């Protein structure tokens, strides 16, 4: 019995993926849970594992093909043998009597190329538009690319790049000049580009600023960092303080933690905190789920783990979806001030920056304090200026006096 290998659920708002590479070839024996194929999604690379032990009987989606969630990638046959055992001898049939209803010879195992050739008219169109056949999934017999598939693909490509941007396939790209290099955008980069632009096009985005005196947090950290690390096995950083402060402020100002859905506002009684980190292929925002229920140590542990995973490119899809609010820290690269862009459909993002000793007036006296500028970008459609500003003030108060975090003040 053949088992179909299907594209797994890729998390919310992700409906399709591109075949990055097949790790097994048709005919290979595979163990249960052994990775078969790598899919590249808008967010991460996902491996699809063998649902059971057997033989990879067929590969239906070639490298580069776009596949939908639930579509069949290939089939897995029982046992380690070649697919479709030959049923008894096939010869003979027509030797009987001329003109009789001779049954068709039973099909033996037929060697089939992994990606069947496109149909003739499709091949012509593909060549004319310089599109590889494996750029799309074929709907013809055994996944062959049909003329209709190419027409649909070209239509989609044309729609994806509306005027005034030139349609990428309809018009040859401009010549690469001396000293230039043309590199195809990765899917992740294309997604980042599209999502950021979507945020700017959709939200009424506005940024409010404040600054925070980090003295108290730094003192606390200096005093307890050894004991903290010994007990919890993670270093005591500042991110935990900010996450906790944001959680408390979000509970006070729920609009900042809400999203717009059509005509409605959806409020969330939990905080799934996105933490923007620079990954190997670009910016990713892993999500700390139910941050409101986590201790400072648990948050620090999660931040550390996600940072490593992002660098290794091993983040899982479910770790990248569902955030309700985000924090981005440009300070690690030295940024003093920035206006972060929202991560749709979220309505708020906190920007942390570099801690810099600056002279400030404290009780009429000039003092040198470790200061950080804070930025909150928000969607003015559902967050009022008062709420946004008050939110940021609350964060500032709790960071400047971490005892408030303990007391819930």
């Amino acid at each position, binding site marked *: 019995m053949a088992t179909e290998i299907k594209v797994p659920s890729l998390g919310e708002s992700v409906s399709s993926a591109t075949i990055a590479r097949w790790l097994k070839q048709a005919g290979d024996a595979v163990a249960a849970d052994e990775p078969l194929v790598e899919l590249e999604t808008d967010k991460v690379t996902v491996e699809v594992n063998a649902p059971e032990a057997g033989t990879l009987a067929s590969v239906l989606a070639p490298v580069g093909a776009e596949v939908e969630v639930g579509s069949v990638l290939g089939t897995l046959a029982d046992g380690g043998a070649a697919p479709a055992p030959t049923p008894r001898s096939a010869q003979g049939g027509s030797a009987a009597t001329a*003109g009789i209803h001779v049954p068709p010879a039973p099909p033996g195992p037929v060697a089939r190329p992994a990606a069947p050739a496109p149909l003739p008219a499709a091949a012509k169109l593909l060549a004319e538009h310089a599109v590889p056949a494996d750029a799309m999934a074929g709907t013809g017999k055994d996944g062959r690319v049909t003329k209709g598939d190419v027409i649909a693909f070209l239509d989609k490509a044309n729609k994806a790049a509306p005027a005034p941007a030139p349609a990428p396939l309809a018009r040859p790209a401009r010549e690469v000049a001396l000293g230039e290099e043309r590199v195809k955008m990765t899917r992740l980069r294309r997604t980042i580009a599209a999502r950021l632009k979507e945020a700017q096009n959709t939200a009424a985005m506005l940024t409010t600023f404040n600054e925070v005196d980090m003295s108290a947090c730094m003192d606390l950290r200096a005093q307890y960092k050894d004991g903290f690390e010994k007990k919890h096995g993670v270093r005591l950083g500042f991110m935990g303080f900010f996450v906790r402060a944001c959680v408390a402020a979000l509970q006070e100002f729920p609009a900042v933690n809400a999203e717009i859905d059509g005509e409605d506002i959806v409020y969330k009684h939990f905080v799934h905190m996105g933490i923007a980190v620079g990954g190997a292929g670009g910016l990713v925002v892993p999500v700390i789920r139910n941050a409101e229920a986590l201790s400072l140590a648990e948050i620090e542990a999660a931040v550390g783990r996600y940072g490593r995973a992002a660098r290794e490119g091993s983040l899982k899809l479910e770790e990248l979806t569902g955030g309700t609010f985000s924090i981005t820290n440009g300070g690690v690269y030295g940024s003093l001030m920035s206006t972060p862009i929202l991560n749709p459909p979220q309505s708020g993002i906190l920007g942390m920056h570099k801690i810099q000793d600056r002279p400030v007036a404290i009780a009429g006296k000039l003092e040198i304090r470790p200061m950080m500028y804070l930025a909150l970008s928000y969607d003015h459609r559902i967050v009022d200026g008062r709420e946004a500003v008050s939110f940021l003030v609350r964060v500032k108060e709790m960071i400047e006096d971490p005892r408030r975090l303990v007391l819930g003040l």
Partner: protein
Amino acid sequence: MSTEFDVIVIGAGPGGYVCAIRAAQLGMKVACIEKRETLGGTCLNIGCIPSKALLQSSENFTEAAHGFAAHGIMLEGVTLDLARMQTRKTEVVTANVRGIEFLFKKNNVTWLKGAAKILGEGQVSVDDTTYHGKSIVIATGSESTPLAGIQVDEDRIVTSTGALDFPAVPGHLVVIGAGVIGLELGSVWRRLGARVTVIEYLDRIVPGIDAEIATAFQRVLTKQGIVFKLGQKVTGATLTDAGVTLTMEPAKGGTATTLEADRVLLAIGRRPHTEGLGLAAAGIATDARGRVVTDAHFATNVPGIYAIGDVIAGPMLAHKAEDEGVALAEMLAGQKPHINYDAIPSVIYTWPEVAAVGATEEDLKAGGVAYTVGKFPFTANGRARAMGSIEGFVKILADAQTDRLLGAHILGPDAGGLIAECVTALEFGASAEDIARICHAHPTLSEAVKEAALAVEGRALHI
């Protein structure tokens, strides 16, 4: 003899015998029950094969009598030996049915001779013996549909069975029903010299065939001398000394008229043949038209009992039954075959022939599908001209947006052979342009198919 089998197939027609052979190929122990003295069912004994034998013979006779002169072959005194023609037909049938017997022996399929009665899950009786089968397949086929007021005696008033065995060419043959069977057998006797009148209840011939093809087909047959009376309802038949007097009235109502015939062929359709099978007692569900109800895997409502072919829903065609027989046998072996019911060809073996696959223009209009049409006449095909068979045309229907082939309809010489490439193209999801881009040998009739495909884009070359 053993009474225990993996599979017991009831009926040895194209569906049943193919299912039995395929199941045996897959290593199952198979029996096939057949009450007829020979294997092969209606198709081989009293259907497709004998009718094709007579169609070929009568076509040859027509050619010799009327066609050869145009080629400069002058024959005088061409005469008909109907007895010899009928004997040849019987020889063809005998060779075919013996072939099935040979195939049964070769594949170790046990032929249980007699009438089957289903006793319940896994049990069938033939005469007084009860046989046990893990799976039972109903493949009992179909029979001619009767018509109220017409008493078939298989002499003066016949079904297709009797029409294959006339001892003499009737002076006037009246065919009730302008479907495939009526027109094929009407053609046979028309070619052999009978006056042929076809009465049809509907106001068109060959329902289900693309209307444009049907209209052209009717014109061709009329030219051959067949008279059509459409929109007429036959209400009765009386045997007289001279033959039969038929009464009919317009289907829309009106004055009744009579028609004298030497013989009458009743060919208004076929209905599932399940009499004596014990379906009701076994609790096997049938629909309003008497067809055995099956799911997508040919399973009836009774576990272990399956049905295929004319006895279930779908077109009553031998090749449909055969494909179902193969598919079912493979399913019983745990395989997962699939039948594409949208790509089943149908052929009318007159001359010229009519062949079709996929949607008709009427289907597409009714479904609101945007389509394009390409047509090419055989008058513009070199080979057809050389053959002297220039009647008819090829019609290709394609999706207006994707150019995907949606239907192909052919009226013309060897249309039944020409349709095969269209079936393949349809199955592979090909576009009309694909057909046009595949090389077709010159000079062949198949070039007409290619040109019709080119015509979809308005760029046929030879017209």
